[in-house]
């Protein structure tokens, strides 16, 4: 079978001692990053990219390291959700709903182990789904021309704006900010500088890493200064940790269902892990009904969002690898990593660089096992990480961001831009304008324009060409639905608020 030989190739790369070592380091760092409130998968991965790049790792190693961090951060996010009632990252929000009540009942250890196992199941099934589905999708993606890609990019912006934000106009503005920034610099087609305002520093365009680190990491510092570290409250104590076999057995179907829901949500472009954990929790809640006791600290309520969240994290890699369209904020950051490493995601990646794809998939499977083994016995160590106070952590994050960006270009101008993006990120988040579309716009703006222009060259300027194939029409319809439908569903799908005690 094709998949088996491909997997064998992947494992031959991933099982080399060096790659294995990187995977373990990545998992460890990732769990720490996920556990720390204020650092999550997207900004954690973002501040590490410039450093990885400067270290001069080859493509496969860098990818293995960063995706291990990514999976690890997804695992780690649950720790502060359960113990402090503070989601370590956005997708972990749903875990607070039952995890924190469970911890308050003195079952913090059970909740942590249970959610660790649920994360493992979700991530494992999603990785299997990825390795089955991605090659198929890659084959379909060969049929895509510029018209289809243009519609696909539009779909990503629309669903991201529609599903993941509370106000369509704000999401559209965020996308336009990103796309507008992507236009700055020399135009590839005509070789003329655009929108630089005559500034020499802008002729090369704005580096997306500068924008990502500014929007995600520096903005976070401003938020902590505003809160004066108010969020670093002391939570529930952790007693001895034993494995709650009975609970794990009890939630087996919940984990499977939640993984499936999460995986599908992850594949949708623009939807991502937050939606995955949300849908998984809500569907399990309605299956369990009133007697299920969701929200009071039941095992199913801890397992469902964690499986969903981690499955969505895996699912989001499918469109990212096969189409070059990320499904979430963090995969957008991973896309930035691929672009930095000069790897162009898309169908050709599977034929031209099979060692990258399959090495990545194999190391995801390994990382997952490492994470489970690491998270159960070492959980009390990771809990201690939570004690790092914000007034040490946040200055540290800032300094790492500065060094990372500085070592990329060595120019003070990029550092200033990064600070400016930090301010922008603060203002945008204050106004409830999502920042992920900004990143997506900066990453995809060039490709989107290129697709449009190539389509117009092929059709000699006939705009109807954009709607000429069934696939393209399907994307357009999905894009419009994805943008408009949430306006009507908003009351039905209102996000539950955090439990306050």
């Amino acid at each position, binding site marked *: 079978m094709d998949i088996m030989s491909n997997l064998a190739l992947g494992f031959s790369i991933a099982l080399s001692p060096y790659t294995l070592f990187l995977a373990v380091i990545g998992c460890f760092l990732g769990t720490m990053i996920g556990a720390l409130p204020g650092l999550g998968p997207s900004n954690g991965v973002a501040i590490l990219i410039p450093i990885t790049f400067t270290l001069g790792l080859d493509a496969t190693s860098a990818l293995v390291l960063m995706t291990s961090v990514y999976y690890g951060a997804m695992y780690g996010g649950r720790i502060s959700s359960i113990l402090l009632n503070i989601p370590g990252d956005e997708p972990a929000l749903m875990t607070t709903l039952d995890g924190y009540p469970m911890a308050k009942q003195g079952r913090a250890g059970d909740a942590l182990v249970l959610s660790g196992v649920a994360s493992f199941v979700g991530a494992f099934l999603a990785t299997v789904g990825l390795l089955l589905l991605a090659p198929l999708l890659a084959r379909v993606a060969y049929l895509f021309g510029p018209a289809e890609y243009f519609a696909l990019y539009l779909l990503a912006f629309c669903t991201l704006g529609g599903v993941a934000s509370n106000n369509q106009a704000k999401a559209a*503005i965020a996308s336009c900010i990103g796309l507008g920034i992507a*236009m700055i610099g020399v135009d590839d087609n005509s*070789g003329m500088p655009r929108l630089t*305002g005559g500034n020499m520093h802008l002729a090369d365009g704005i580096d997306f890493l500068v924008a990502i680190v500014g929007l995600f990491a520096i903005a976070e510092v401003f938020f902590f*200064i*505003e809160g004066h570290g108010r969020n670093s409250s002391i939570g529930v104590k952790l007693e001895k940790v034993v494995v709650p076999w009975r609970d794990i057995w009890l939630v087996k179907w919940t984990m499977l269902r939640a993984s499936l829901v999460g995986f599908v949500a992850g594949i949708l472009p623009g939807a991502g892990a937050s939606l995955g954990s949300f849908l998984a929790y809500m569907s399990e809640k309605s299956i369990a009904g009133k007697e299920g006791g969701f929200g009071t600290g039941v095992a199913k309520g801890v397992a469902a969002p964690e499986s969903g969240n981690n499955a969505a994290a895996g699912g989001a890699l499918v469109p990212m690898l096969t189409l070059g369209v990320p499904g979430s904020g963090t995969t957008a950051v991973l896309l930035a990593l691929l672009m930095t490493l000069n790897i162009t995601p898309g169908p050709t990646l599977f034929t031209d660089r099979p060692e990258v794809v399959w090495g990545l998939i194999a190391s995801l499977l390994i990382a997952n096992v490492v994470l489970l083994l690491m998270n159960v016995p070492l959980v009390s160590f990771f809990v201690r990480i939570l004690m790092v106070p914000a*007034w040490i952590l946040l200055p540290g994050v800032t300094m790492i961001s500065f060094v990372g960006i500085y070592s990329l270009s060595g120019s*003070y101008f990029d550092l200033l831009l990064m600070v400016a993006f930090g301010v922008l990120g603060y203002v945008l988040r204050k*106004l409830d304008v999502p920042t992920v579309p900004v990143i997506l716009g900066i990453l995809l703006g060039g490709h989107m324009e290129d697709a*449009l222009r190539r389509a117009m060259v092929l059709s000699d300027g006939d705009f109807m060409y954009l709607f000429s194939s069934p696939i393209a029409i399907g994307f357009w319809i999905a894009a419009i639905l994805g943008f408009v439908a949430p306006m009507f569903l908003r009351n039905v799908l209102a996000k539950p608020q955090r439990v306050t005690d």
Partner: protein
Amino acid sequence: MASDRLFGLVVLMTALAFIASATQIQTSFLSDPVGPKAFPMLIGGVAAISALVMIIKPDPSPQWPVLKTFGSLLIALLVLVAYAYALKPFGFLFPTAVTAAILSYQISSRVVPSMLTGVGLSIGLFILFKYALKLGLVPFPQGFLS
């Protein structure tokens, strides 16, 4: 209300300026049917429409920080800008210690722990970056200690 309207207005102005400067983009003789102007103008147009929607239908305003917190944010911003300029001429250690200490103070409001944080982070991160990760950092300004 007011915050969204103000932001919408700023976006609208920026979008119009963006469109205006897009019309100034020079086209070369090697051009495709779309050219380098159309896509930026399209983006500006979408942004302007969305900004109008925001002005007409604003969300409730967020809770903005009080004046004193605003001051701390401004100080943090100025320190970060100064740090960006200082990193090259003054080396890594001194600017980092000062910046980290000030940021730490803005979060904790305690003098001694912040200063210790600053010095600790500066030295710790330097060792990490220079020796463990082998990044080329310059510890001191040139000519110092020689």
